[in-house]
Structure formats: structure tokens, C-alpha cells
């Protein structure tokens, strides 16, 4: 029991720190509120779904970036999608990075 309580506490602390550092934002709180008895693993499901989806997106991005002449439009589309997903689950940092990424795309800045 002790162990469990400790783990729980750690979890809470970790989560709080994530919030503080800006990794997560309010949306995540909403997500947590959505979870209830009828759907106890909701948050877990959503987050895993997010990971899968973003992994796919990141792969696409990597591939596109490695090309000689990157197709910025496609890149932009991918990043846009990632941005949408991350904002939906409250991954604030990821979302912000996506925004920056998109700016680079607009400027056709491969380096960025």
C-alpha cells in the first residue's frame, strides 16, 4: 500500500511539474475530467492514440525532410495535423513547436 501511495504521489508531482514547465496545459485537465468510471482508461487510451499517430506523422516528416527538395506544403500539412492532435490532448510544448515549425515552412527554411 505504501508503495502504491508513493507512486501516486510521484505521479501527481510529475504531472504538476509538467504543467509548470509548460508541457501540458489546461486541455489535459479537461481530458482528465472526461475520464470517469464508465471509461476509466480514457486518458491512457487517448494518449497512446496520440503517440501512435504522432509517431506516424513524425516519420513522414523525417522522410520529407530528408529529401533533396522538401515539399513544404506537405510538411506543413503534416505539422498542422500534429499541431491539432497535440493541442487536443493538451501537449502544449509540442503544439508550440509545431507552430514554430510551420513558420519555417512558410519561409521555406529548411534549416529551421
Amino acid at each position: 500500500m505504501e508503495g502504491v501511495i508513493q507512486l501516486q504521489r510521484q505521479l501527481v508531482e510529475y504531472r504538476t511539474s509538467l504543467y509548470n514547465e509548460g508541457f501540458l496545459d489546461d486541455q489535459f485537465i479537461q481530458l482528465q475530467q472526461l475520464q470517469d468510471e464508465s471509461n476509466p482508461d480514457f486518458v491512457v487510451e487517448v494518449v497512446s492514440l496520440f503517440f501512435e499517430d504522432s509517431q506516424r506523422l513524425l516519420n513522414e516528416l523525417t522522410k520529407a525532410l530528408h529529401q533533396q527538395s522538401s515539399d513544404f506544403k506537405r510538411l506543413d500539412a503534416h505539422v498542422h495535423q500534429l499541431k491539432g492532435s497535440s493541442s487536443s490532448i493538451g501537449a502544449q510544448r509540442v503544439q508550440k513547436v509545431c507552430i514554430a515549425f510551420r513558420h519555417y515552412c512558410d519561409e521555406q527554411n529548411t534549416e529551421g
Partner: protein
Amino acid sequence: MNLGGGETVKSMSMPNSSVSWKSGDGVTDQFPAGLRVLVVDDDPTCLMILEKMLRNCLYEVTKCNRAEIALSLLRENKNGFDIVISDVHMPDMDGFKLLECVGLEMDLPVIMMSADDGKNVVMKGVTHGACDYLIKPVRIEALKNIWQHVVRRKKHEWKDFEQTGSVEDGERQQKPPEDADYSSSANEGNWRNSKKRKDEEEEAEERDDTSTLKKPRVVWSVELHQQFVAAVNQLGIDKAVPKKILELMNVPGLTRENVASHLQKYRLYLRRISGVSQHQSGFNNSFMGPSDATFGSISSLSGLDMQLPAQSLATLQAAVLGRSTTKSSISMPLVDQRNLFSFETPKPRFGEGQQQQLSNNSKQINLLHGIPTNMEPKQLANLHQSAQSFGGMNMQVNSHGSQSNSLLVQMAQPESRSQMLNEINGSHRIQSSMGQPIMSNGCASGVLARNGMANNARGTLYNPLSQASSVLDFSVNHGTDLPGSSFPIGGNAGISSLPSKEMLHEDVISETKGTRGFLPSYDVLSELHQQKSQVWGSQNVGLTYETSHHANMRGSCDVSPSVIVQQGFSSIQNNGQNRSAMGKAVFSSGQESAHGNVPNISQQPNTFLLDNLLMVKAERFPDASYHNTIFAEQLGQEDLMSVFLKQQGDTGSVESEFGFDGHHLDNLPV
């Protein structure tokens, strides 16, 4: 309790009902709950979150990640949903197209959402008729209020009813009270019904009876739309008032409000199309005519249509309405049949009548002979216009069109979906390819006409297209002997036929090309008529322009294609887009060569189209399956390709295909 289900639960048990009544004010407690929502988004994460949130709001949620699936769900179950929430950026179909489609076909409130909060995107949502726009991440509070859109829309419908003296009027107004009913009879999931009336029986009636007053939501079938278009054409688009239209239509159970709201949509559609090009409006008329053979207005159009070819594409476009100038020589014979082309005649209005004409145009084949080249552009133009105006209406008309043997008829085929798109595409195509307005018009109209025909359902948009296609077909048919009114495919056949014809005419050739291109694209759209393949095979003449067109088409294609495309999308969504894109390209290329400017299509993927057109054209002809061939080759642009492919390939299965998106260009029969 788990209110996930929403409605049913409430009435059942105390806890449930208490839950539903939790809102506090007894009247509408139940109401928002049980709302049937359809969510469309390609992002699985977001989809899941939304679903959960909506369930928490006690709504009934159905989710899907592809627009085509959503469309088919909506179509299968006309009254299955109360509101649709859709994402803007989706890989298979543009969210706005879906939005338009749903709005036109099912008249459901649609909410757009996106992580993109740019002003122009939001504006786009508004102009396409979205009743709300949410920015991601979506908060549950925002979702809690979406029921207001449903209520608002219903209220409008009911109000209409009331005015018309429908029985339910009084009841309808009391939507909130009905909520209470809802809880008890919620199981139906028709809280709407309950709203309408306390009387369950009545609700059932209303539900079943689409055209009666009772039903708040009237399903604008292709026939109905054709009737509507014909009536509007008869009255004159400016003078068309719901009351008179209603009288003319003489459909039992139809209320003035239904007509009014439909008219509004139609006007919007027309405006959009005419914004693209004048021709288009012309086409619309023509389209409408052909498809609505019955309406008879077509006859007038037919005269016009004929003219189109003569006129030179340029004229067509401009003249769409009154086209007859250019090619009258050839078109004349066709004109009769063509009624469709009448689009050109200034009747942008409801092409329905025209559509019929288009259908009637089956005779268009005649057109093919003489005008083949000329008509086509016009038709295309007409088609565009018609298509545009029709947006949804044509579809209805289209169904009529299909009847006529000429291609137009074919178009009408049930492909309602494609119709719209086809038409759009058709028109676009025509325009673009036509380079010369004429060509496109002919084609477009033909195509549109065709589409209209084929698309029964979609009707409005397509009609113009079908017409175009029919026009095209005719010309083509002659040459190749189009499978008969194969237009159904949306004019692809027509278009192709036209192109073939054109080849004969030399100068037509360029046009035909346009038309041809058109056809292919149309095919996609029209799906309805697979016939296209026939046409092209022989005619491929049009192919020539492909090369030349590219340059031109792009530019010229302007508007029409874009317009059409949009239109197409809405209606067809899947197919349409592709087609239109293709259509445009095709047209543009065709036109370019011919005249050098396809005024309309430029907007859309001109380049895309051009390529597609060229490719398509060449391919299409040889292959009946237009869709495939065309797409495969050129389309560099997926859309076109799929569109074409569909068209071509669909010779038989047009209907179901709409989802071309990624069709198969590979089959292009080149």
C-alpha cells in the same frame, strides 16, 4: 447511469430522467441530450476526444474518419443525424466540400473545426454555410452548446410550416416542450420528432413523409429539384418567389418554407457559379433544361446550346446564357436536343428545366454532328453554370437528364453525388479545356447535364454538368457513337463524344479536347455514366489540346473550375472534386489550344487539370472507363485522377463510387 446513450435512458429510470432533467428547467432538459451527432475527422486522437466529450454531453455520437464514409452514412440514413461536426483539413476530401454537400443534400447544420484559426479559413467556413466554427483544441463547453444550431434550423423549418398552415405548426414551435416528449419517446432518437409534435403518430408520419409539410426536413430528390429548377426558370430567376415556385411545382406536402430555403441555397449556388464565369450561369440553364426534359424549358435552351458551339468558346462562356451566338451553325441541330445547352441562354436559373433539356438533348447527338466542337464549349460553360447553380438542384434534374438517351440522360443517373460534382467539373472542364468558352460550355453543360442526369440526387449541381456532358457526348457520340446517352457518367461521355466530334471539325478539336477533358473529369463525377469511355475512345482527338492547353488552361480555367470544384465537392465530395479538378484541367487544356483561354477553370488546379486533361483525354477516349485512364495519367493530381477514373471506370458503377478520391487513374484507357 450512463447517459451515453442519451435519450433512451432518461425516460426509463428515475436516475436517468433526473439526469436529463438536471439542467434545471424542466422544459428542455431532455432536449439537448440524445442529439445525434456525426463527427468526421481524420485525426484519431481528436476524434476520440470529441466522442468522449459529446458522450458526456449526453449526445449520441457516431464518428468516422473519412468524409466519404460520413457522406454515405448520411445518405443512407437521411434522418439519422441532427448535426454534423467536421474537420477542415482532411486527406480524402476537403471539409468545406463536405460541408456544402451536407448542407445541400441534407440540410443539416454543420460545424467546422480546425486547429487553423486563420481568418480566411474561418471566412471560408462561413461562406460555405457552416453554422459554426470551432478552433481546436475543442473544449467541452463549446460542444455543450451545439444543440442551439439544431434548434435554430428546425425553428426555421417549422416556421415555414406554420406559415403554410401545416398541421404541426403550433406544435413545432414548442420544441422545448417536446423535449419532454423526447425523453419518453426518446428511444427513437428523434428528439426532433418529439419536438415537432407531441403526437407520436404524427411524428412518424412526418418522418416518413419527406415531402409533406409535416416533415420539417424535405428531401430534395432529383426530381423534386428538377421541378424546382424548372419552375424557377419559368419564372425567371429574379422573379422566382417561393410562393410562385411552390404553385408551379405543385407538389403536395411541400411548403413554401421548404421552397424558400431551397431557393436560397440555389441562389447561393448560382451566385457562386456565376461568380466564376458568366457562362456558367448560362450553362446552368442549359443544364437544367436538358435534365428536365419534362420541364420543357429546355427547349429554349436547346436552341441556345446549339449556338454555343458556333460561338466560339469565348462567347460561350460569356454567352453561356445566351449563347447561341457562336456556333449556332452546328449547334443548331443539336440545340434542339440540347436544350441543355440552353444554358447558355441566360437562364442561369434553374437549369432544371434545362437539365431536362439536356436529357432531351440526348438528341444532342445531333449536336455532336454539327456542333460538336462548338457546343461543347458552351455546354461546358453551361454546365458549369448550371452545375453551379444547381449545386444541389441539378442533381434532381440530372436524374431526368439521364433519361434522355443522349449523354445527358446518362448523367442523371442516380449518381446524385457525382452529379453535383460532375457538373461542376463538367462545367469547369469545359471551361478550362475549352479555352474557348464555347467548348467548355458545351462540355460543361454536357457534362453537367449529364451529371445532372446521373446524379438524380445531387441534381442541382450536376445538371449543368450533365448537360454539358450531354452536349459533349453528342458531338462525340456521333463520332464514336457514344454508347448512347451514356452521358450518365456525367458528361464524360458527352465530353468525350464531343471531343471526338471536334476532331472532325478541326477547330473543334481544340474544343473537343476541352470537352474531352471534360468528359473524363466528368466521368468521375458523373460516375453515373460510364459511358464516357466510349466517347473518348473515338474521339481522343481532343488530346491534342492537352499539350497546348496546359498553358492556357490553367489560366483560363479559372473560376469555373474552382467554382465547380467547390461545388462538386459539396455535392459529390469525393468524386466531384476530383472530377472537377480534372474537368478543369481538361478543359483548360482543351480550351487553351482552341482559343487560348479558358476563362474559367484557372482557379482550380489548372495545372493539375491540364495535365490531367491531356492525359485524360488521351486516355479517356480509348477507354471507356474514363476514369481510370485519365486519372492515371495525368492527374498528377490525385483528385482529377480519381475523378476521371471514376468516371471512366465507372461506367457501370458510377454511383457508388463517388469516393473516388484516389481512384484510379491508372486505368485510364489511353
